[in-house]
Protein backbone atom coordinates (compact mmCIF):
# COMPACT_ATOMS: atom_id res chain seq x y z
CA UNK A 1 0.00 0.00 0.00
CA UNK A 2 1.27 3.43 -0.93
CA UNK A 3 2.31 5.54 2.08
CA UNK A 4 0.07 8.46 1.16
CA UNK A 5 -3.04 6.33 0.75
CA UNK A 6 -4.71 6.91 4.14
CA UNK A 7 -4.45 10.65 3.75
CA UNK A 8 -6.01 10.36 0.31
CA UNK A 9 -8.85 8.12 1.42
CA UNK A 10 -9.69 10.23 4.46
CA UNK A 11 -9.62 13.33 2.28
CA UNK A 12 -12.11 11.76 -0.08
CA UNK A 13 -14.35 10.85 2.82
CA UNK A 14 -14.05 14.38 4.23
CA UNK A 15 -15.11 15.88 0.90
CA UNK A 16 -17.99 13.46 0.59
CA UNK A 17 -19.11 14.36 4.12
CA UNK A 18 -18.90 18.08 3.45
CA UNK A 19 -21.08 17.61 0.35
CA UNK A 20 -23.49 15.45 2.36
CA UNK A 21 -23.75 18.24 4.94
CA UNK A 22 -24.21 21.15 2.55
CA UNK A 23 -25.85 19.91 -0.67
CA UNK A 24 -29.21 18.78 0.76
CA UNK A 25 -29.62 22.23 2.28
CA UNK A 26 -28.82 23.94 -1.02
CA UNK A 27 -31.30 21.77 -2.93
CA UNK A 28 -34.26 23.67 -1.46
CA UNK A 29 -33.28 26.79 -3.44
CA UNK A 30 -33.99 25.43 -6.95
CA UNK A 31 -37.07 23.64 -5.62
CA UNK A 32 -38.40 26.95 -4.25
CA UNK A 33 -37.87 28.54 -7.66
CA UNK A 34 -39.74 25.85 -9.56
CA UNK A 35 -42.37 26.83 -12.11
CA UNK A 36 -44.38 23.72 -11.26
CA UNK A 37 -47.10 23.43 -8.65
CA UNK A 38 -45.58 20.42 -6.92
CA UNK A 39 -42.16 19.77 -5.34
CA UNK A 40 -39.74 19.50 -8.26
CA UNK A 41 -36.84 21.17 -9.98
CA UNK A 42 -37.70 24.03 -12.37
CA UNK A 43 -38.67 22.62 -15.78
CA UNK A 44 -39.26 25.54 -18.14
CA UNK A 45 -37.84 28.41 -16.15
CA UNK A 46 -37.62 29.83 -12.71
CA UNK A 47 -40.54 31.45 -10.98
CA UNK A 48 -40.97 33.46 -7.82
CA UNK A 49 -44.65 32.55 -7.47
CA UNK A 50 -44.06 30.42 -4.37
CA UNK A 51 -42.24 33.22 -2.59
CA UNK A 52 -45.16 35.47 -3.51
CA UNK A 53 -47.59 32.91 -2.09
CA UNK A 54 -45.76 32.87 1.23
CA UNK A 55 -45.13 36.59 1.51
CA UNK A 56 -48.75 37.50 0.78
CA UNK A 57 -50.31 34.84 2.99
CA UNK A 58 -51.69 36.25 6.24
CA UNK A 59 -51.23 32.85 7.89
CA UNK A 60 -47.51 32.61 7.11
CA UNK A 61 -46.87 36.29 7.87
CA UNK A 62 -48.78 35.99 11.13
CA UNK A 63 -46.67 33.03 12.20
CA UNK A 64 -43.45 34.76 11.20
CA UNK A 65 -44.39 37.81 13.25
CA UNK A 66 -45.43 35.69 16.21
CA UNK A 67 -42.20 33.69 16.14
CA UNK A 68 -40.20 36.89 15.87
CA UNK A 69 -41.84 38.61 18.86
CA UNK A 70 -41.62 35.46 20.97
CA UNK A 71 -37.95 35.07 20.07
CA UNK A 72 -37.18 38.71 20.93
CA UNK A 73 -38.90 38.48 24.31
CA UNK A 74 -37.37 35.07 25.10
CA UNK A 75 -33.91 36.34 24.13
CA UNK A 76 -34.31 39.31 26.47
CA UNK A 77 -35.16 36.92 29.29
CA UNK A 78 -32.27 34.51 28.54
CA UNK A 79 -29.73 37.27 28.09
CA UNK A 80 -30.54 39.19 31.26
CA UNK A 81 -30.76 36.14 33.52
CA UNK A 82 -27.88 34.30 31.84
CA UNK A 83 -25.42 37.20 31.79
CA UNK A 84 -25.92 38.05 35.46
CA UNK A 85 -25.61 34.39 36.41
CA UNK A 86 -22.42 33.91 34.40
CA UNK A 87 -20.86 36.98 36.02
CA UNK A 88 -21.87 35.79 39.49
CA UNK A 89 -20.44 32.31 38.90
CA UNK A 90 -17.25 33.79 37.50
CA UNK A 91 -16.68 36.05 40.51
CA UNK A 92 -17.62 33.59 43.26
CA UNK A 93 -15.26 30.71 43.80
CA UNK A 94 -15.53 27.85 41.41
CA UNK A 95 -16.45 25.09 43.80
CA UNK A 96 -19.31 26.99 45.40
CA UNK A 97 -21.00 27.50 42.05
CA UNK A 98 -20.43 24.03 40.61
CA UNK A 99 -23.99 22.99 41.32
CA UNK A 100 -25.35 26.13 39.69
CA UNK A 101 -23.25 25.55 36.59
CA UNK A 102 -24.43 21.97 36.21
CA UNK A 103 -28.02 23.08 36.75
CA UNK A 104 -27.67 25.72 34.06
CA UNK A 105 -26.48 23.18 31.51
CA UNK A 106 -29.39 20.78 32.11
CA UNK A 107 -31.59 22.24 29.34
CA UNK A 108 -28.89 21.29 26.83
CA UNK A 109 -28.75 17.72 28.11
CA UNK A 110 -32.34 16.77 28.89
CA UNK A 111 -34.36 16.15 25.71
CA UNK A 112 -36.98 18.80 25.01
CA UNK A 113 -39.68 16.14 24.76
CA UNK A 114 -39.32 15.51 28.51
CA UNK A 115 -39.51 19.22 29.30
CA UNK A 116 -42.41 19.67 26.86
CA UNK A 117 -44.65 17.08 28.53
CA UNK A 118 -43.68 18.56 31.90
CA UNK A 119 -44.78 22.03 30.81
CA UNK A 120 -47.97 20.66 29.27
CA UNK A 121 -48.99 19.51 32.73
CA UNK A 122 -47.46 22.42 34.68
CA UNK A 123 -48.80 25.32 32.59
CA UNK A 124 -52.42 24.10 32.68
CA UNK A 125 -53.28 25.26 36.23
CA UNK A 126 -51.19 28.43 35.73
CA UNK A 127 -53.27 29.40 32.67
CA UNK A 128 -50.14 29.60 30.51
CA UNK A 129 -51.12 27.05 27.86
CA UNK A 130 -51.46 28.54 24.37
CA UNK A 131 -50.28 31.93 25.68
CA UNK A 132 -47.55 34.20 24.39
CA UNK A 133 -46.11 34.47 27.91
CA UNK A 134 -46.00 30.70 28.35
CA UNK A 135 -43.94 30.16 25.21
CA UNK A 136 -41.65 33.09 26.10
CA UNK A 137 -40.95 31.57 29.52
CA UNK A 138 -40.29 28.11 28.05
CA UNK A 139 -37.96 29.42 25.35
CA UNK A 140 -36.34 32.00 27.61
CA UNK A 141 -35.46 29.49 30.33
CA UNK A 142 -34.06 26.93 27.89
CA UNK A 143 -32.05 29.67 26.14
CA UNK A 144 -30.11 30.55 29.31
CA UNK A 145 -27.36 27.90 28.77
CA UNK A 146 -26.33 29.41 25.42
CA UNK A 147 -25.85 32.81 27.04
CA UNK A 148 -24.00 31.36 30.01
CA UNK A 149 -21.56 29.52 27.72
CA UNK A 150 -20.74 32.51 25.51
CA UNK A 151 -20.55 34.99 28.40
CA UNK A 152 -18.38 32.63 30.47
CA UNK A 153 -16.03 32.31 27.51
CA UNK A 154 -15.82 36.11 27.26
CA UNK A 155 -15.23 36.39 31.03
CA UNK A 156 -12.41 33.86 30.91
CA UNK A 157 -10.43 36.41 28.90
CA UNK A 158 -11.27 39.24 31.30
CA UNK A 159 -8.67 40.29 33.87
CA UNK A 160 -10.31 40.06 37.33
CA UNK A 161 -7.89 42.72 38.63
CA UNK A 162 -9.78 45.33 36.62
CA UNK A 163 -12.87 44.55 38.61
CA UNK A 164 -10.93 44.61 41.89
CA UNK A 165 -9.40 47.95 40.93
CA UNK A 166 -12.81 49.44 40.21
CA UNK A 167 -14.15 48.20 43.54
CA UNK A 168 -11.01 49.40 45.33
CA UNK A 169 -11.57 52.89 44.00
CA UNK A 170 -15.04 52.90 45.51
CA UNK A 171 -17.31 51.81 42.67
CA UNK A 172 -20.46 50.03 43.80
CA UNK A 173 -21.40 46.61 42.47
CA UNK A 174 -23.83 48.05 39.94
CA UNK A 175 -21.32 50.70 38.80
CA UNK A 176 -18.64 48.05 38.35
CA UNK A 177 -21.05 45.95 36.33
CA UNK A 178 -22.24 48.84 34.21
CA UNK A 179 -18.91 50.54 33.48
CA UNK A 180 -16.23 47.88 33.84
CA UNK A 181 -17.52 44.36 33.26
CA UNK A 182 -20.40 44.67 30.78
CA UNK A 183 -18.56 46.73 28.13
CA UNK A 184 -15.72 44.22 28.14
CA UNK A 185 -17.90 41.17 27.65
CA UNK A 186 -20.40 42.78 25.23
CA UNK A 187 -19.33 40.56 22.28
CA UNK A 188 -19.96 37.44 24.37
CA UNK A 189 -23.38 38.74 25.39
CA UNK A 190 -24.20 39.53 21.77
CA UNK A 191 -23.22 36.02 20.61
CA UNK A 192 -25.31 34.55 23.40
CA UNK A 193 -28.24 36.69 22.30
CA UNK A 194 -27.96 35.44 18.72
CA UNK A 195 -27.84 31.81 19.80
CA UNK A 196 -30.73 32.27 22.24
CA UNK A 197 -32.70 33.97 19.48
CA UNK A 198 -32.09 31.15 16.98
CA UNK A 199 -32.96 28.63 19.71
CA UNK A 200 -36.38 30.19 20.26
CA UNK A 201 -37.00 30.98 16.58
CA UNK A 202 -36.44 27.31 15.59
CA UNK A 203 -37.98 25.62 18.60
CA UNK A 204 -40.79 23.18 17.81
CA UNK A 205 -41.11 20.39 20.38
CA UNK A 206 -42.24 22.57 23.30
CA UNK A 207 -44.58 24.55 21.07
CA UNK A 208 -46.26 21.33 19.92
CA UNK A 209 -47.31 20.70 23.50
CA UNK A 210 -47.91 24.11 25.07
CA UNK A 211 -49.44 26.01 22.16
CA UNK A 212 -52.32 25.09 19.91
CA UNK A 213 -54.34 27.80 18.18
CA UNK A 214 -53.72 31.30 19.46
CA UNK A 215 -49.96 30.83 19.44
CA UNK A 216 -48.98 29.26 16.12
CA UNK A 217 -45.31 29.86 15.51
CA UNK A 218 -43.42 29.50 12.25
CA UNK A 219 -41.86 26.10 13.08
CA UNK A 220 -45.33 24.87 14.00
CA UNK A 221 -46.72 25.96 10.64
CA UNK A 222 -43.77 24.34 8.82
CA UNK A 223 -44.36 21.13 10.79
CA UNK A 224 -48.01 21.08 9.75
CA UNK A 225 -46.98 21.82 6.16
CA UNK A 226 -44.52 18.92 6.05
CA UNK A 227 -47.06 16.53 7.52
CA UNK A 228 -50.07 17.67 5.48
CA UNK A 229 -49.25 19.26 2.15
CA UNK A 230 -45.78 19.16 0.70
CA UNK A 231 -45.79 22.00 -1.83
CA UNK A 232 -43.11 24.34 -3.18
CA UNK A 233 -44.28 27.11 -0.84
CA UNK A 234 -42.63 25.06 1.93
CA UNK A 235 -39.37 25.21 0.01
CA UNK A 236 -39.76 28.98 -0.29
CA UNK A 237 -40.20 29.24 3.48
CA UNK A 238 -37.14 27.04 3.96
CA UNK A 239 -35.07 29.32 1.72
CA UNK A 240 -36.20 32.43 3.62
CA UNK A 241 -35.30 30.74 6.92
CA UNK A 242 -31.86 29.72 5.65
CA UNK A 243 -31.10 33.27 4.52
CA UNK A 244 -32.27 34.66 7.84
CA UNK A 245 -30.06 32.24 9.81
CA UNK A 246 -27.05 33.00 7.60
CA UNK A 247 -27.63 36.72 8.14
CA UNK A 248 -27.61 36.27 11.93
CA UNK A 249 -24.44 34.16 11.79
CA UNK A 250 -22.72 36.72 9.57
CA UNK A 251 -23.68 39.48 11.99
CA UNK A 252 -22.17 37.45 14.83
CA UNK A 253 -18.97 36.80 12.89
CA UNK A 254 -18.61 40.44 11.78
CA UNK A 255 -19.06 41.69 15.32
CA UNK A 256 -16.51 39.27 16.72
CA UNK A 257 -14.01 40.15 14.04
CA UNK A 258 -14.43 43.88 14.73
CA UNK A 259 -13.82 43.29 18.41
CA UNK A 260 -10.78 41.16 17.81
CA UNK A 261 -9.28 43.40 15.13
Amino acid at each position, binding site marked *: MDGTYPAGASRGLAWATALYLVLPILIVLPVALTDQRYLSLPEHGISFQHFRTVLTSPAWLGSIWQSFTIAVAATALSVSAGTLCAIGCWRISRRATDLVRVLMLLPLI*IPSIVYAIGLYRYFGPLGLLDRFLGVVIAHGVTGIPYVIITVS*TALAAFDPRLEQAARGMGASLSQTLRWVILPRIAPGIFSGAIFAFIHSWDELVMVLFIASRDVFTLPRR*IWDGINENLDPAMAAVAVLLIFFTLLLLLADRALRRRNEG
Partner: protein
Amino acid sequence: MNDTGRVSAGWWLLILPAFLLLVAFYIAPILQVLAISFTDPEPGLGNYERIFTSGSVQRVIMTTLRICLITTALSLLLGYAIAYAITLASPRAKGWWLLAVLVPLWISVLVRAFAWVTLLRRQGLVNNSLMGAGVISEPLPLVWNEFGIIVGMVHYMVPFAVLPMLSSMREIDPRLLAAARGLGASRWEVFRSVFLPLSKPGILAAAVLVFIFSLGFYITPAILGGGKTLMVAEWISLQILDLIRWGLGTMMATMLVVAILVTLAVFSRIVDLRRIFGSGG
Protein backbone atom coordinates in the same frame (compact mmCIF):
# COMPACT_ATOMS: atom_id res chain seq x y z
CA MET B 1 -13.35 40.91 56.18
CA ASN B 2 -16.87 42.07 56.80
CA ASP B 3 -16.73 43.90 53.50
CA THR B 4 -15.83 40.83 51.45
CA GLY B 5 -18.77 38.98 53.00
CA ARG B 6 -21.14 41.68 51.81
CA VAL B 7 -19.57 41.78 48.38
CA SER B 8 -19.95 38.09 47.93
CA ALA B 9 -23.64 38.28 48.90
CA GLY B 10 -24.04 40.84 46.10
CA TRP B 11 -22.52 38.43 43.58
CA TRP B 12 -24.80 35.65 44.77
CA LEU B 13 -27.75 37.94 44.07
CA LEU B 14 -26.68 38.03 40.43
CA ILE B 15 -27.11 34.28 40.20
CA LEU B 16 -30.53 34.38 41.82
CA PRO B 17 -32.80 35.32 38.85
CA ALA B 18 -31.48 32.55 36.61
CA PHE B 19 -31.52 30.08 39.48
CA LEU B 20 -35.12 30.84 40.45
CA LEU B 21 -36.30 30.78 36.82
CA LEU B 22 -34.68 27.42 36.30
CA VAL B 23 -36.02 25.88 39.48
CA ALA B 24 -39.57 27.22 39.07
CA PHE B 25 -39.95 26.77 35.31
CA TYR B 26 -37.57 23.97 34.42
CA ILE B 27 -36.79 21.63 37.30
CA ALA B 28 -40.25 21.76 38.88
CA PRO B 29 -42.24 20.87 35.73
CA ILE B 30 -39.86 18.02 34.92
CA LEU B 31 -39.84 16.50 38.41
CA GLN B 32 -43.60 16.86 38.66
CA VAL B 33 -44.25 15.05 35.41
CA LEU B 34 -41.70 12.31 36.07
CA ALA B 35 -43.40 11.63 39.39
CA ILE B 36 -46.58 10.76 37.49
CA SER B 37 -44.87 7.59 36.28
CA PHE B 38 -45.18 6.23 39.84
CA THR B 39 -48.78 7.28 40.45
CA ASP B 40 -50.77 6.88 37.23
CA PRO B 41 -52.95 4.87 36.72
CA GLU B 42 -52.29 3.53 40.23
CA PRO B 43 -49.45 4.10 42.73
CA GLY B 44 -46.55 1.71 42.38
CA LEU B 45 -44.04 0.45 39.86
CA GLY B 46 -46.67 -0.94 37.48
CA ASN B 47 -45.49 1.24 34.59
CA TYR B 48 -41.92 0.09 34.99
CA GLU B 49 -43.03 -3.53 34.99
CA ARG B 50 -44.11 -2.94 31.38
CA ILE B 51 -40.46 -2.77 30.35
CA PHE B 52 -40.25 -6.49 31.03
CA THR B 53 -43.72 -7.52 29.95
CA SER B 54 -44.80 -5.32 27.07
CA GLY B 55 -43.59 -6.19 23.59
CA SER B 56 -44.29 -2.73 22.22
CA VAL B 57 -42.29 -1.02 24.98
CA GLN B 58 -39.36 -3.37 24.37
CA ARG B 59 -39.60 -2.86 20.63
CA VAL B 60 -39.40 0.93 20.89
CA ILE B 61 -36.42 0.71 23.24
CA MET B 62 -34.56 -1.68 20.95
CA THR B 63 -35.34 0.41 17.86
CA THR B 64 -34.10 3.54 19.60
CA LEU B 65 -30.88 1.91 20.80
CA ARG B 66 -30.18 0.39 17.40
CA ILE B 67 -30.74 3.67 15.53
CA CYS B 68 -28.70 5.62 18.08
CA LEU B 69 -25.75 3.24 17.92
CA ILE B 70 -25.70 3.24 14.12
CA THR B 71 -26.07 7.03 14.06
CA THR B 72 -23.24 7.45 16.57
CA ALA B 73 -20.89 5.14 14.67
CA LEU B 74 -21.54 6.83 11.31
CA SER B 75 -21.35 10.35 12.74
CA LEU B 76 -18.01 9.53 14.37
CA LEU B 77 -16.59 8.12 11.15
CA LEU B 78 -17.71 11.03 8.96
CA GLY B 79 -16.96 13.59 11.66
CA TYR B 80 -13.48 12.20 12.16
CA ALA B 81 -12.71 12.50 8.46
CA ILE B 82 -13.80 16.14 8.49
CA ALA B 83 -12.00 17.00 11.72
CA TYR B 84 -8.85 15.35 10.37
CA ALA B 85 -9.11 17.30 7.12
CA ILE B 86 -9.60 20.56 9.06
CA THR B 87 -6.56 19.84 11.21
CA LEU B 88 -4.37 19.22 8.16
CA ALA B 89 -5.79 22.06 6.06
CA SER B 90 -4.10 25.40 5.41
CA PRO B 91 -5.49 28.30 7.47
CA ARG B 92 -7.42 29.57 4.46
CA ALA B 93 -9.01 26.21 3.64
CA LYS B 94 -9.75 25.72 7.32
CA GLY B 95 -12.26 28.54 7.27
CA TRP B 96 -14.21 26.93 4.43
CA TRP B 97 -14.21 23.50 6.05
CA LEU B 98 -15.45 25.02 9.30
CA LEU B 99 -18.18 26.84 7.41
CA ALA B 100 -19.36 23.53 5.93
CA VAL B 101 -19.66 22.16 9.48
CA LEU B 102 -21.06 25.18 11.31
CA VAL B 103 -23.66 26.43 8.84
CA PRO B 104 -25.67 23.17 8.86
CA LEU B 105 -25.45 23.23 12.65
CA TRP B 106 -27.45 26.45 12.81
CA ILE B 107 -29.92 25.82 10.00
CA SER B 108 -33.34 24.90 11.34
CA VAL B 109 -33.73 21.17 11.93
CA LEU B 110 -37.15 21.38 10.26
CA VAL B 111 -35.64 22.86 7.12
CA ARG B 112 -33.12 20.06 6.99
CA ALA B 113 -35.72 17.34 7.51
CA PHE B 114 -37.83 18.97 4.80
CA ALA B 115 -34.86 18.98 2.43
CA TRP B 116 -34.34 15.25 3.02
CA VAL B 117 -38.01 14.52 2.36
CA THR B 118 -37.75 16.47 -0.91
CA LEU B 119 -34.75 14.40 -1.92
CA LEU B 120 -35.69 10.94 -0.70
CA ARG B 121 -39.43 10.43 -1.09
CA ARG B 122 -40.92 8.18 -3.80
CA GLN B 123 -41.22 10.95 -6.38
CA GLY B 124 -38.26 12.73 -4.83
CA LEU B 125 -35.27 14.12 -6.64
CA VAL B 126 -33.04 11.08 -6.00
CA ASN B 127 -35.58 8.50 -7.15
CA ASN B 128 -36.63 10.62 -10.13
CA SER B 129 -33.10 11.14 -11.39
CA LEU B 130 -32.15 7.49 -10.86
CA MET B 131 -35.24 6.41 -12.76
CA GLY B 132 -34.63 9.03 -15.45
CA ALA B 133 -31.11 7.67 -15.89
CA GLY B 134 -32.50 4.16 -16.13
CA VAL B 135 -30.56 2.87 -13.12
CA ILE B 136 -33.69 1.65 -11.36
CA SER B 137 -37.16 0.87 -12.63
CA GLU B 138 -39.00 1.15 -9.30
CA PRO B 139 -38.57 3.98 -6.77
CA LEU B 140 -36.36 2.93 -3.85
CA PRO B 141 -37.86 3.14 -0.36
CA LEU B 142 -35.46 5.80 0.94
CA VAL B 143 -37.60 7.57 3.50
CA TRP B 144 -40.38 6.86 6.00
CA ASN B 145 -38.30 3.98 7.29
CA GLU B 146 -35.21 3.40 9.41
CA PHE B 147 -32.88 4.26 6.52
CA GLY B 148 -34.41 7.73 6.15
CA ILE B 149 -34.21 8.36 9.90
CA ILE B 150 -30.53 7.45 9.98
CA VAL B 151 -29.69 9.60 6.94
CA GLY B 152 -31.37 12.60 8.57
CA MET B 153 -30.00 11.98 12.05
CA VAL B 154 -26.40 11.51 10.93
CA HIS B 155 -26.75 14.72 8.94
CA TYR B 156 -27.82 16.48 12.13
CA MET B 157 -25.19 14.88 14.38
CA VAL B 158 -21.99 15.14 12.29
CA PRO B 159 -21.29 18.76 13.34
CA PHE B 160 -21.71 17.77 17.01
CA ALA B 161 -19.19 14.98 16.44
CA VAL B 162 -16.72 17.24 14.65
CA LEU B 163 -16.44 19.94 17.31
CA PRO B 164 -15.11 17.88 20.27
CA MET B 165 -12.83 15.84 18.01
CA LEU B 166 -11.47 18.98 16.42
CA SER B 167 -10.64 20.54 19.76
CA SER B 168 -8.74 17.43 20.85
CA MET B 169 -6.90 17.18 17.52
CA ARG B 170 -5.83 20.81 17.88
CA GLU B 171 -3.96 19.91 21.05
CA ILE B 172 -1.83 17.33 19.24
CA ASP B 173 1.67 18.69 18.80
CA PRO B 174 2.52 18.50 15.06
CA ARG B 175 6.18 18.00 15.99
CA LEU B 176 5.28 14.55 17.31
CA LEU B 177 4.02 13.57 13.87
CA ALA B 178 7.08 15.04 12.20
CA ALA B 179 9.31 13.13 14.64
CA ALA B 180 7.56 9.83 13.94
CA ARG B 181 7.87 10.46 10.21
CA GLY B 182 11.55 11.32 10.65
CA LEU B 183 12.09 8.05 12.47
CA GLY B 184 10.89 6.21 9.39
CA ALA B 185 7.19 5.63 9.98
CA SER B 186 4.94 5.69 6.92
CA ARG B 187 2.05 8.17 6.90
CA TRP B 188 -0.36 5.40 7.72
CA GLU B 189 1.78 4.29 10.69
CA VAL B 190 2.06 7.86 11.94
CA PHE B 191 -1.68 8.15 11.80
CA ARG B 192 -2.37 4.80 13.40
CA SER B 193 0.17 4.79 16.19
CA VAL B 194 0.51 8.52 16.96
CA PHE B 195 -2.37 10.64 15.74
CA LEU B 196 -5.26 8.27 16.34
CA PRO B 197 -4.37 7.41 19.98
CA LEU B 198 -3.81 11.08 20.77
CA SER B 199 -7.20 12.03 19.37
CA LYS B 200 -9.01 9.39 21.43
CA PRO B 201 -10.35 11.75 24.13
CA GLY B 202 -12.08 13.74 21.41
CA ILE B 203 -13.59 10.62 19.85
CA LEU B 204 -14.96 9.53 23.20
CA ALA B 205 -16.41 12.96 23.97
CA ALA B 206 -18.00 13.08 20.53
CA ALA B 207 -19.46 9.59 21.00
CA VAL B 208 -21.06 10.53 24.33
CA LEU B 209 -22.44 13.78 22.95
CA VAL B 210 -23.92 12.29 19.78
CA PHE B 211 -25.35 9.29 21.61
CA ILE B 212 -27.17 11.29 24.28
CA PHE B 213 -28.46 13.80 21.74
CA SER B 214 -29.73 10.97 19.53
CA LEU B 215 -31.56 9.19 22.35
CA GLY B 216 -34.17 11.89 22.86
CA PHE B 217 -34.32 13.21 19.31
CA TYR B 218 -37.85 13.99 18.19
CA ILE B 219 -38.31 16.07 15.08
CA THR B 220 -36.10 14.38 12.50
CA PRO B 221 -37.13 10.79 13.35
CA ALA B 222 -40.79 11.84 13.45
CA ILE B 223 -40.65 13.43 9.99
CA LEU B 224 -38.36 10.95 8.25
CA GLY B 225 -39.80 7.90 10.03
CA GLY B 226 -43.28 8.70 8.77
CA GLY B 227 -44.95 7.29 11.89
CA LYS B 228 -43.92 3.72 11.08
CA THR B 229 -40.56 3.51 12.83
CA LEU B 230 -41.02 4.91 16.33
CA MET B 231 -38.19 6.14 18.53
CA VAL B 232 -38.77 6.91 22.22
CA ALA B 233 -39.41 10.65 21.88
CA GLU B 234 -42.16 10.17 19.31
CA TRP B 235 -43.52 7.22 21.26
CA ILE B 236 -43.78 9.38 24.40
CA SER B 237 -45.58 12.10 22.50
CA LEU B 238 -47.98 9.50 21.07
CA GLN B 239 -48.75 8.09 24.54
CA ILE B 240 -49.50 11.52 25.93
CA LEU B 241 -51.18 13.48 23.13
CA ASP B 242 -53.07 10.70 21.35
CA LEU B 243 -53.54 7.83 23.79
CA ILE B 244 -53.64 9.91 27.01
CA ARG B 245 -51.61 7.26 28.82
CA TRP B 246 -49.65 9.55 31.11
CA GLY B 247 -48.24 6.76 33.23
CA LEU B 248 -46.56 4.97 30.32
CA GLY B 249 -45.40 8.15 28.63
CA THR B 250 -43.80 9.56 31.76
CA MET B 251 -42.25 6.18 32.60
CA MET B 252 -40.44 6.23 29.27
CA ALA B 253 -39.48 9.89 29.78
CA THR B 254 -37.98 8.96 33.16
CA MET B 255 -36.06 6.09 31.59
CA LEU B 256 -34.78 8.45 28.91
CA VAL B 257 -33.50 10.97 31.48
CA VAL B 258 -31.96 8.21 33.59
CA ALA B 259 -30.24 6.68 30.55
CA ILE B 260 -28.76 10.04 29.61
CA LEU B 261 -27.62 10.96 33.12
CA VAL B 262 -26.10 7.50 33.66
CA THR B 263 -24.22 7.70 30.36
CA LEU B 264 -22.89 11.11 31.35
CA ALA B 265 -21.97 9.96 34.86
CA VAL B 266 -20.11 6.89 33.61
CA PHE B 267 -18.17 8.83 31.03
CA SER B 268 -17.50 11.91 33.11
CA ARG B 269 -14.73 9.87 34.75
CA ILE B 270 -13.08 9.34 31.40
CA VAL B 271 -14.18 12.37 29.43
CA ASP B 272 -13.77 15.98 30.35
CA LEU B 273 -17.38 17.15 30.15
CA ARG B 274 -16.30 20.74 29.79
CA ARG B 275 -14.85 19.77 26.45
CA ILE B 276 -18.28 18.64 25.37
CA PHE B 277 -20.19 21.72 26.41
CA GLY B 278 -17.69 24.32 25.33
CA SER B 279 -15.77 26.47 27.76
CA GLY B 280 -18.72 26.75 30.12
CA GLY B 281 -16.49 26.77 33.14
